[in-house]
């Protein structure tokens, strides 16, 4: 194998290993700051009691280098691959190897159960898992990899709605509100919502998950989409579900929408629900293997 490719693969392997650990043990700054602020604002005693423990957990997980939540989730890999980045041998092999090692070393909980035999591989790999999504970025010679550990409690609330185009746009915020109300404390609120509007069935779900990669507080660049994000977020915060469903001012941390052209006959709305413990890590390198950022 070309020596340069081998060096790049080693570099990616090392950074993925580091990013998995970072993702499961350290809460990103945007979420940490959100909770610090919420603790100052929330006057209800039950919320305050929970917020104290949540903030303590964020700090202790990082310090002790152990998973913040025992549900280290299904590790979703999202790769933005520059079309000028050298072709490497296999993302699947690199990721599988690192995930299997991380499962023993960190350790992670193994969340890889065969749907027919019910056997857990205890390795977090096997049968198309962990999921890897690759997007080719034109005119780029960089690679950017995001790791999103997705827990089961919140993912179980996720849903695809195929609405009628005649009133889909008006209806979908109400349907989402009903979904969140019905879910109550199950997805570990306050939640973050990723929504894929338009596309077809599969694409709207992929966009919904991709929407979760955006930092909280960052609005969609299109004004009309950004307004929808805020409208839905504000309507969810009227529900008084609060932290873990025990009541309180904040039910939703943020809503992120990604959009795609739809078929004239379809109005797909993909909704991916994320728990408050929104763990994510990412990095970017160029084709020389030089680090552009890691977070």
């Amino acid at each position: 194998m070309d020596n340069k490719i081998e060096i790049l693969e080693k570099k990616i392997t090392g950074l993925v290993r580091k990013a998995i650990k970072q993702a499961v043990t350290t809460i990103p700054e945007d979420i940490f700051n959100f909770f610090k602020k919420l603790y100052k604002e929330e006057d209800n005693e039950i919320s305050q009691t929970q917020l104290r423990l949540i903030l303590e957990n964020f700090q202790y997980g990082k310090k002790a280098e152990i998973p913040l939540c025992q549900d280290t989730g299904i590790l979703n890999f999202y790769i933005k691959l520059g079309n000028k980045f050298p072709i490497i041998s296999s993302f699947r092999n690199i990721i599988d190897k690192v995930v299997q090692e991380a499962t023993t070393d960190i350790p992670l909980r193994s969340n890889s159960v065969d749907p027919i035999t019910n056997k857990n591989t205890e390795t977090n790999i096997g049968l198309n898992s962990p999921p890897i999504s690759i997007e080719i970025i034109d005119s780029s010679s960089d690679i950017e990899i995001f790791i999103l550990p997705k827990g089961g409690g919140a993912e179980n609330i996720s849903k695809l709605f195929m609405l009628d185009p005649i009133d889909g746009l008006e209806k979908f915020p109400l349907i989402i509100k009903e979904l969140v109300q019905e879910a109550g404390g199950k997805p570990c609120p306050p939640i973050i919502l990723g929504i894929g509007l338009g596309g077809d069935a599969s694409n709207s779900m992929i966009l919904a998950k991709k929407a979760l990669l955006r930092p909280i507080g960052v609005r969609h660049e299109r004004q009309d989409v950004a307004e929808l994000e805020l409208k839905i977020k504000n309507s969810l915060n009227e529900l008084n579900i609060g932290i873990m469903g025990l009541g309180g001012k904040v039910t939703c941390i943020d809503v992120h929408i990604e959009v795609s052209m739809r078929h004239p006959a379809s109005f797909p709305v993909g909704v991916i629900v994320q728990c408050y413990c929104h763990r994510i890590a990412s990095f970017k390198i160029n084709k020389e293997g030089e680090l552009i950022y890691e977070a």
Partner: protein
Amino acid sequence: MRHNINLPTKVEDLLPLKIGDIVYLNGSIITARDLAHKRISNYIHEKKPLPHSFNKIKNTALYHCGPIIKKINEKYKIISAGPTTSARMNSVENDIIKFLDIHILIGKGGMKNLDEKNLKVIYLSYPGGCGAVASRMIKEVVHVEWLDLGSSEAVWFLRVDQFGPLIVAQDISGNSLYK
């Protein structure tokens, strides 16, 4: 109001616990989630006795949790152990707590159709996601049963110290913090 409860406990000690109160537990608890619930249900239906180790759990607490466990020098250690969503156990929980003679449930998100009054059971909410700090309150892995279910689905017998804050979310009179 804050309460300290030592396990095993008497049902009478649970009567003063009202929704919104804060509880800290000391003593023995067990974990059980989806597959352990299914297996206990099978034992009930087949009228089979549970393994002997279950004899000691009467009047302790059942924690809906699938922990991360690591074996260090032949001893199991809890790495992270927050709660899992209790509602998945809705359909079988009444039968199970009656069979095990347990009166305290710990989990997250609350339960539907729980027969609090007749079974004299309370539901305590532990903040989801707080698995790392929970590992500090779990002092010892005393025993494990049914490891064949996988380490996160097995029944772990644990000794806890000042395990909390747990919020009384459903009390023995059937009051609930969930709308």
